[in-house]
């Protein structure tokens, strides 16, 4: 990778080394936690209290402050997972493999939250909990992909082989991501079209949009925190016999 400047490639090489990653994570986590709590606090206060009520839906629309960021995260995490899978497959980097499997349960939870909050909103607004339209069905398939990845990883004893199998499954499933995103434009669906990511101008009032974007960033930080925590545990489990883990445990006790 000669086209990457040396300081950056050195940074990534150091990050890819497990002991360095472990100590850096421990230093980063308190900061990430602080930022997350501040963003979440403002996002919830802004979304549930400051933002005006909607002209049609009244206060019921406020579920978007959880539903929309969770749905975005369900797609975002999948893309991160597939990219980490590709990096793990090509460069055989252990940490990338760990990122894949540590992301899967977090992504599955966000997908589940998006589906459940959508159903809770759908009942009063549409008049039904669930319909088999293209958006809802493809999001459900995403949940099954996450669950498939988790169970495939659990089914293979050798964890390095399991990581490779899981990375391939994640890469195959990535085709579903554009389908979910564009489903509301390609087909007639009951689910409404995009509000925020429209190219010209978001069709949401600015006072409602700011808390929504704050919540989206807060959810990103939550993902980072949960990912690093899960990755630390997975790393210790895989490296339990290595020298750096042993010496670290000796200094801590």
């Amino acid at each position, binding site marked *: 990778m000669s086209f990457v400047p040396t300081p950056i490639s050195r940074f990534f090489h150091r990050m890819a080394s497990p002991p360095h990653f472990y100590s850096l994570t421990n230093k980063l986590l308190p900061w990430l936690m602080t930022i997350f709590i501040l963003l979440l606090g403002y996002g919830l206060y802004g979304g549930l209290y400051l933002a005006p009520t909607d*002209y049609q*839906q009244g206060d019921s629309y406020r579920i978007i402050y959880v539903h929309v960021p969770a749905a975005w995260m369900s797609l975002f995490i999948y893309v991160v997972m597939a990219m980490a899978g590709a990096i793990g497959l090509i460069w055989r980097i252990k940490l990338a493999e760990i990122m894949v499997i540590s992301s899967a349960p977090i992504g599955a939870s966000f997908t589940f939250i998006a589906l459940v909050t959508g159903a809770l909103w759908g009942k009063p607004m549409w*008049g039904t909990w669930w319909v088999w339209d*293209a958006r809802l069905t493809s999001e459900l398939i995403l949940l099954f992909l996450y669950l498939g990845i988790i169970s495939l990883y659990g089914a293979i004893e050798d964890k390095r082989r399991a990581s490779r199998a899981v990375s391939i499954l994640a890469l*195959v499933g990535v085709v579903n991501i554009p389908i979910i995103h564009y489903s509301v434009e*390609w*087909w007639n669906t009951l689910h409404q079209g995009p509000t925020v990511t429209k190219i010209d101008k978001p069709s949401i009032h600015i006072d409602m949009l700011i808390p929504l974007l704050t919540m989206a960033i807060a959810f990103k930080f939550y993902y980072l925190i949960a990912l690093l925590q899960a990755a630390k545990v997975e790393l210790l489990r895989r490296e339990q016999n290595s020298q750096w883990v042993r010496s670290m445990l000796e200094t801590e006790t």
Partner: protein
Amino acid sequence: MKPARRNRLFLILLMVAGVATAATFALQAFNENLMYFFSTTEVAEGKAPQGAKFRLGGMVVEGSIERPDNGMMVRFVLTDYNKQVTVEYTGILPDLFREGQGIVANGRLNDKGVFIAEEVLAKHDENYMPPEVADSLQPPEVQQ
């Protein structure tokens, strides 16, 4: 990049491209079935199944909602700004049901070309705004 890595990168790109192509063709083939509802124009032109249940989507025409015998039965007209279809429904309507609102009805056509709905779902649009802003936008712009 080492040759082994380049080969693996190439294989992965090939796999993703292959899956994407397969998915595109599959979705093209199923395109009709993935449509959640028929438009009123398609129904008026006889493209919707006769005698079978299907979904019909459209906007409720302003001033078309009536309750002919003061009961639970509601009659209204749906449009896609091209052709119109009359719908009859007996039951509870969702919160968002109103004139000018997009809805999806599930049911079948009778002999007179009236759509007898068994279920009515409101389709929400992608606009969110406070009531004051909505009032200042009068009259609402009509979009195709």
